[in-house]
């Protein structure tokens, strides 16, 4: 099908000459890394620290899985188990998912994609990393120094009154990490508004930028609310200010309202950038303009907006008013529309595309399937009646892992592979990476699909034993088996990507033959990104015809009847390109 060589080493598009100094080798001192304002270096700092936290969170996940292979548990005590699943949730949500794609890929790509020298506020960007690290160290400190057992949701009154674990310290860490998120969001918004290169109009922006912009909006509107809500628990624990205390007449359900007012949009902070990565991957590996560019762009904003109107679907069984429950259920179903628009448009983009099954594309195709399952099972949970049965079971665990791991982590890995040559200037080994992408897909499904079944049968989440129902054991064993495969498939990229830093072949400026401003500059880019600020003259995803098929098509487009004027000719060819 494809005439383009599968080996990314051989590039079809002529590369701009490599400049000798780039952002990586401009200065080798540690000080230059720790005090850098360069968005690319900050992205690398984030990559290292977030990978470390992901490793810790994965260990916690492994402990949970191995504990559950026996109906009565066999590694952990109940209390330890509570601390382990809380650690898994807190680390993965606050220190991995919320930061992974925006702060690593987003930070690296946003200025490159819009043709800017840097983010609008480089020092704020660096501050964001330091806040993240401070928050991360506090959270880890709290976990090492006694742990926290309230789950990542910190529901009151347990977290504010009864938990004797290190809730205050961990909450302080999350509070600080929240400000790291806010500063990143502010930077994204201002950069997108004010730093675009000449000619880079809103509808020439890559869809990744649209997604990052929508993410920024969600971050700045949601994060402060959860920050102050968690601060109220800190107030209650440290200063005895009774904000949510039920015994004095306060309302613990109000905490849930405020918590989910952020934490539901937070899942869009995690998945929206993944949508952006996905759009880039699909367009570039189908070598076609994304079908329905405007719809995908606006559906990102629609998801960001609607995401703020559905928080109550986490509280159907939390004594919420049934009338508000009905409204929230309806609006939750509405979120399916923009999500489906994206999935259908990606699929339509594949149609008659010039598909190359390289590693990022395998991840992208996996994403479509896994995200669809995750999204559709979300409808089960958004429905008032079925939710009563399914909520707080493993069904819900499987649902959000399909969206978060099958969606966000898969897209993150795909994006990391796709932009790895740009970030490091080295190529990763393609064949092993391909097999690993398949392994991720297999391991993931083996881990989480049995959880749908066992959850539907009634296995409650957050339980560390199920001796009351030993028939669940085969599913748990299958899930643990899958998680082992999944863990292996996360370790392998860590190894070969690290190895490629020194042993990998040098990458050209545009190893994929892709189209976009980030591929115009050398790999890795110089510190100021572009030698001169580019002027954007054409549409995004306007791929140069490379293969014979594409060239034929382009030639046909130019063959217009002679009775048409020159103007009509150019308009016609413009139309054909789209």
């Amino acid at each position, binding site marked *: 099908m494809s005439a383009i060589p599968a080996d990314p080493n051989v590039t079809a598009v002529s590369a701009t000459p490599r400049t000798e100094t780039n952002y990586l080798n401009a200065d080798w001192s540690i000080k230059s890394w720790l005090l850098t304002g360069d968005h690319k270096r900050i992205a690398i700092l984030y990559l290292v620290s977030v990978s470390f936290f992901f490793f810790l969170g994965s260990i916690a996940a492994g402990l949970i899985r191995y504990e559950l292979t026996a109906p009565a548990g066999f590694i952990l005590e109940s209390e330890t188990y509570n601390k382990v699943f809380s650690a898994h949730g807190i680390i993965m949500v606050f220190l991995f998912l919320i930061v992974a794609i925006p702060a690593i890929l987003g930070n690296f790509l946003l200025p490159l994609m819009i043709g800017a020298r840097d983010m609008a506020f480089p020092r704020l960007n660096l501050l964001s990393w330091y806040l993240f690290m401070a928050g991360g160290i506090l959270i880890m400190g709290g976990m090492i120094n006694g742990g926290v057992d309230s789950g990542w949701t910190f529901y009151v009154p347990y977290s504010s009154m009864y938990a004797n674990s290190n809730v205050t310290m961990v909450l302080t860490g999350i509070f600080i990490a929240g400000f790291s998120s806010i500063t990143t969001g502010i930077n994204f918004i201002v950069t997108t508004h004010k730093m675009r290169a*000449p000619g880079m109009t809103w509808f020439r922006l890559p869809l990744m930028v649209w997604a990052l912009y929508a993410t920024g909006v969600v971050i700045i509107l949601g994060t402060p609310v959860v920050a*102050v809500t968690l601060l109220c628990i800190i107030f209650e624990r440290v200063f005895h200010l009774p904000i949510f205390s039920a015994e004095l007449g306060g309302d613990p359900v109000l905490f849930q309202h405020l918590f989910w007012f952020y934490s539901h949009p937070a899942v869009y902070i995690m998945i929206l950038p993944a949508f952006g990565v996905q759009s880039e991957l699909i367009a570039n590996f189908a070598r076609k303009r994304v079908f329905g560019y405007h719809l995908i762009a606006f559906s990102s904003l629609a998801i960001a907006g609607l995401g703020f109107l559905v928080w109550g679907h986490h509280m159907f069984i939390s004594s919420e008013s049934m009338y508000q429950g009905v409204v929230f259920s309806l609006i939750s179903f509405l979120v399916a529309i923009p999500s489906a628009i994206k999935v259908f448009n990606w699929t339509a983009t594949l149609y008659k595309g010039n598909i190359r099954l390289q590693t990022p594309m395998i991840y992208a195709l996996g994403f479509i399937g896994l995200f669809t399952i995750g999204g559709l099972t979300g409808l089960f949970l958004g429905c008032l009646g079925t939710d009563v049965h399914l909520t707080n079971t493993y069904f819900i665990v499987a649902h959000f892992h399909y969206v978060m791991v099958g969606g966000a982590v898969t897209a993150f890995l795909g994006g990391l592979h796709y932009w790895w040559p740009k970030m490091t200037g080295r190529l990763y080994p393609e064949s092993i990476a391909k097999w690993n992408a398949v392994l991720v897909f297999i391991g993931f499904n083996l881990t989480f699909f049995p959880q749908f079944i066992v959850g539907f049968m009634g296995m409650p989440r957050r339980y560390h034993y199920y001796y009351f129902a030993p028939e669940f054991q085969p599913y748990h064993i299958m899930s643990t088996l899958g998680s082992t495969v999944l863990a292996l498939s996360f370790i392998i990229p860590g190894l070969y990507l690290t190895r490629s830093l020194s042993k990998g072949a040098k990458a050209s400026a545009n190893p994929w033959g892709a189209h976009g401003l980030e591929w115009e500059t050398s790999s890795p880019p110089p510190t100021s990104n572009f030698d001169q600020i580019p002027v954007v003259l054409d549409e995004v995803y306007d791929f140069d015809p490379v293969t014979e098929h594409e060239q034929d098509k382009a030639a046909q487009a130019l063959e217009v009847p002679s009775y048409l004027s020159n103007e009509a000719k150019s308009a016609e060819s413009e139309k054909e390109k789209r």
Partner: protein
Amino acid sequence: MAAIASDHGHGHGHDEALHHQFENMEQQNDSYIVGMWTFLVTEVMFFGALFLIYTLYRSMYQMDFFLAHEALNVQMGMINTFVLLFSSFTVAMSVRYAQLQKRGGVLAMLGITQVCALAFMVVKYFEYQEKFGHHLYPGPGFGSHPEYLHGATPNFAQLYFGLYFGMTGLHGLHVVIGMIVIGYLMAKWWRNSPMVTKDYIPTELVGLYWHFVDLVWIFLFPLMYLMPKP
């Protein structure tokens, strides 16, 4: 993508106040203003959540909140509101002087603002001291002198004072942060740093922050001190 080199002359070294990532001063100033407004939106949501909690509890326990609020000193609240509104004016004036590049005017106006902020915190200190003295701080000893509760149910009065200390405390923290930032800005002006003298935007940003602090108090004052009798 047919990207050709921009013919824009890049302003490196032309303007001391221009950062490397921007093309010109206008882009830089626009970015800073937009960034500050974005930050203020987060602040609105930050305090907004607290106002929401307050609204719910007050609508639930109207009479008790009313009775508990009688323990507050309206005169002190009025003085503080006057002081903050006046300081908002002086900050606006300092921005005006910064635009006109009048260093003396800026320093004088920011100095008055600092005095106002200090006065606000001193009044706040006396208020807090009085409440602590009357055992109105939530916790084990709360309401041990029931005459200061003015007949409110102790539990609900505790909720009220919890919110009172939480909200005014966070607002006070913002005032202190404002004082530090204004102090830093004054030092910059004092040393004739080109960062502020060549460009009024830093002064403007500090001004926006200070106005926001004033804005929060504009809502806090009637909600906490001036409740109508239910």
